[in-house]
């Protein structure tokens, strides 16, 4: 064994014994993972909303279209980009500092992530979640107010009125 190699061992162990180098606590890695997790969740939400808006803009959307688009934008989770950027940057900063992460199939992970984003955005569009925001909860009042002010027909209300008329004739 060469002198230099003995020195490596002695130097490293001396630094450990003297407390010059200490292990990062497990919490350090947990916090790093949590930042990354929150970052990716926020990125996911952000992407789903963006995809949903893109689907919406690409479709023909009738007289309420402009209003629904505005509503989508006004409901846009603006905290998501902030959380996404902060979470991912801090998380990667903590975990990648000494490259302690393990090999992952990043190509597959990115494909799955993008796939999940498009699927969720498409599902939101198909299941008309944006319409439900209009017809349920606090947004219902906003919609009624908008319809009354602009004298616009509404499928949901017209259907209910038609059903009421049928009940009256019966």
């Amino acid at each position, binding site marked *: *064994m060469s002198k*230099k*190699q003995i*020195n*490596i*061992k002695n*130097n*490293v*162990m001396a*630094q*450990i014994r003297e407390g010059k*180098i*200490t*292990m*990062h*606590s*497990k919490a*350090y*890695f947990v916090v790093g993972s949590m930042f990354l997790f929150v970052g990716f969740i926020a990125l996911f939400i952000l992407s789903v909303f963006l995809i949903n808006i893109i689907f919406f803009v690409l479709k023909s959307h009738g007289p309420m279209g402009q209003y629904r688009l505005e509503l989508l934008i006004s409901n846009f989770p603006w905290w998501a980009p902030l959380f996404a950027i902060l979470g991912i940057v801090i998380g990667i900063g903590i*975990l990648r500092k*000494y*490259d*302690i992460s*393990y*090999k992952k199939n990043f190509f597959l992970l990115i494909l799955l992530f993008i796939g999940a984003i498009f699927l969720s955005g498409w599902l939101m569009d198909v299941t008309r979640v944006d319409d439900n925001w209009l017809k349920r909860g606090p947004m219902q009042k906003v919609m009624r107010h908008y319809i009354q002010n602009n004298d616009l027909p509404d499928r949901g209300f017209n259907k209910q009125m038609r059903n009421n008329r049928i009940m009256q004739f019966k």
Partner: protein
Amino acid sequence: MYYNVWDMSLFKKTTDEKLVEDIRSKNKELYAVIVERYQNKLMKYVVYLIHDEHKAADVVQETFIKAYINLNGFNVKKNFSSWIYRIAHNEAMNMVKKYRKEVPMNLNFDIKSDLELEEEFSKKEIKEKAEKCLNQIPIIYSEPLVLHFLDDKSYKEISDILRIPMGTVAIRINRAKAIMRNICQKNK
């Protein structure tokens, strides 16, 4: 409790992963066993990467320090050897980039795809010729070759250390053999 060279034999059968668990929870002095186990292997590996024994010793020392600092981040269900080699690889690459002008290495070198890849060299032949020709091979090819033939790493381990698919490991090793053969023949 301190351990000397003779005490090291006590841990001959203890796996790296078990040692890491003990270092983390019981006795940090056991880290000396890890250093003892890996310092020669890492020195050999890093010297092949940066061609300078003094700088290699610094890289290896830094590797052990960083590995110790991040020991709690190591997953004991995974292979410790690949983990510490990965840290050494990163440290060596940092050193190569830092002294790129002093140690010219073509990191992006590639060879023509139609290069004929003939029969593989035997392990013994590779070992004999390696030291003569290895320095002239681009690092992206020499590194998997060194890990496979000189450090006896499997394709899976090399794939973990270099973060490249196993197929790419195989291709780079084959190309490295071909380049090596050409270089060695020219040097005859």
